[in-house]
């Protein structure tokens, strides 16, 4: 008997008990759909994260100092000079001095979610930001400790109706003049990147009574990041003589770490989804065993009429494979649909990967073979007379 004949037989037998076939397939459908949806959403998430890293500037190197109370320290001027001396390697640097728990006030209105950060005039270019109104902080602002600020769209909309340029807001009691508004980058939400006020770091350091301990140094271009990092490391070690006093990490390294974590997370999720595939497979095995038992007499008749063990084996294996293959195909469509729908709900663009589809389909077909084989083997080994007498 040929495979096509076995296949026709399988389809016929599945059609004869549609409800049961459907329920058996459901396990595979859910398993395959879960794997595809999860992988697609994880892919979407990681490409989102990677692209937001890229927005932040993949040439950047983050430096932070650990206060140790040593007698040697690196001041912003030192960092500035270091960068200026190696223009072949560095584009520039900006300190980032976060003023913790700053109170921001305009008239009688208060905001305590806004983050207030002291930066240099290069901050916008280094971090790929731009102003949509007014101008960014200038060298003069920084040098002369001008109380000027650039605000995010949330801050603008929170305090002002429409135009904010030239208006005044108070930070920790000090009045600041708004000179620019940043382009919206995070949907204008509270506590997001748009809920930010940027001021000259020289001013920030003064009103917060803290030293600058974080810097973002930008390499000249992508190829120079590693060398820039090494040079910076060398410089810092020479100056401070203690590796524990600072940490340096490039944006690329940070992106790799996040990518790695995401990869592991998606492995875990796929593993969990894989369990549902396994459960689906056990469902198939269970149904096949029932089916073999139920059809013992039929198997006996077929054997009496000349079916070889291979004929019987292939009949049941093909039936199992057909069940799981149909389930697999339905699962693909369902999984793609699910990924799209969930992606839309959480605002992620699901990235459907061919490998996820390939893997889950081959796994579901494999399950069909593996879990269909044992019941089928059992059927093939039945002694004809015992099978015929079975009730």
């Amino acid at each position: 008997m040929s495979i096509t004949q076995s296949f026709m037989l399988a389809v016929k037998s599945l059609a004869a008990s549609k409800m049961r076939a459907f329920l058996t397939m459901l396990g595979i459908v859910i398993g395959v759909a879960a794997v595809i949806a999860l992988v697609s959403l994880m892919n979407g998430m990681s490409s989102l994260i990677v692209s937001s890293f890229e927005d932040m500037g993949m040439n950047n190197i983050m430096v932070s100092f650990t206060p140790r109370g040593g007698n040697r320290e690196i001041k912003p001027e030192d960092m500035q000079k270091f960068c200026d001396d190696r223009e072949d390697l560095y584009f520039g640097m900006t300190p980032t001095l976060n003023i913790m728990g700053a109170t921001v006030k305009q008239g009688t209105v208060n905001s305590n979610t806004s983050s207030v950060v002291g930066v240099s005039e290069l901050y916008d270019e280094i971090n790929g930001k731009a102003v949509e109104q007014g101008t960014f902080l200038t060298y003069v602002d920084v040098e002369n400790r001008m109380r000027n600020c650039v605000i995010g769209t949330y801050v603008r909309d929170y305090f002002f109706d429409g135009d904010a340029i030239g208006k005044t807001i108070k930070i920790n009691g000090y009045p600041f003049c708004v000179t620019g508004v940043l382009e919206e980058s995070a949907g204008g939400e509270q506590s997001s990147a748009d809920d930010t006020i940027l001021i000259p770091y020289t001013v920030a350091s003064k009103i917060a009574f803290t030293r600058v301990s974080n810097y973002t140094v930008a390499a000249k271009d992508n190829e120079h990041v590693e060398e820039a990092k090494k040079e910076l490391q060398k410089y810092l070690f020479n100056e401070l003589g203690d590796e524990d006093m600072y940490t340096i990490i490039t944006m690329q390294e940070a992106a790799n770490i996040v990518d790695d974590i995401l990869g592991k997370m998606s492995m875990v999720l796929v593993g969990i989804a894989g369990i549902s595939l396994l459960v689906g497979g056990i469902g198939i095995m269970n149904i096949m065993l029932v089916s073999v038992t139920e059809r013992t007499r039929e198997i006996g008749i077929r054997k009496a009429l000349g079916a070889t063990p291979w004929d019987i084996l292939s009949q049941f294996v093909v039936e199992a494979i057909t069940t799981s293959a149909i389930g697999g195909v339905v699962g693909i469509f369902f999984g793609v649909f699910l990924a799209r729908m969930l992606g839309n709900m959480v605002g992620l663009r699901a990235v459907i990967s061919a490998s996820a589809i390939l893997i889950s389909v081959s796994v579901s077909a494999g399950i069909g073979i593996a879990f269909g084989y044992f019941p089928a083997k059992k059927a093939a080994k039945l002694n004809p007379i015992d099978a015929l007498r079975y009730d």
Partner: protein
Amino acid sequence: MIEFRDIYKIYNEGEAENEVRAVDGISFFIGRGEFVGIVGASGSGKSTCMNIIGCLDVPTRGQYLLNGTDVSTMSEKQLAHVRNRELGFVFQQYNLIPKLTILENVELPLLYKGIGQSERRELSFRALEKVGLADRVKKYPAQLSGGQQQRASIARALAGNPPVILADEPTGALDSKTGRDILEFIKKLNEEDGTTIVLITHDPSIAEECPRVLKIHDGKIIDDIRKQDIK
């Protein structure tokens, strides 16, 4: 062509009380084209004998030669081959597959023989025509009467045109008129096509018609009557 050499079928051998000697040392030879009836009381071992002849069951001891080959030396696959091509089995309980139509049931042995779809249809249809069921091919077994089902199972046995037909009480469940029709049909097969027939029956009037009758009692042959001998 069918030869039993001291065949035994013993269930639960060695367990003093439970031991059943269903076939207790039987030897015979059935030649090509013979028409043999097997008679005997219920439980005497007729079906057991028949199942061994049909390669559905294996003897506990003894040699069964089919066309000169010892069946016990054959592989599962070869046995399937023999059941498919050499033998046609007609069961007392019809044994049609309920989910398949009459035509599909009759097609089964041809399917396992590897015959293509259209030829299979053709041969099955002709076999059903012979037994007078041409107008019932699309029906399912449950939609037919007992006699019609038995005729369908005969059609299935002869569709592949096997040299031997084994029938275990083919008329047992039928009224005497229908039983007679079926017997006439089987006789015709034997006379016209030279098919070897082995038939189990309880009905003395049917046994009467058989040119040769084997009488079995308690798993032993107690009589082997050939009509020609009497004539």
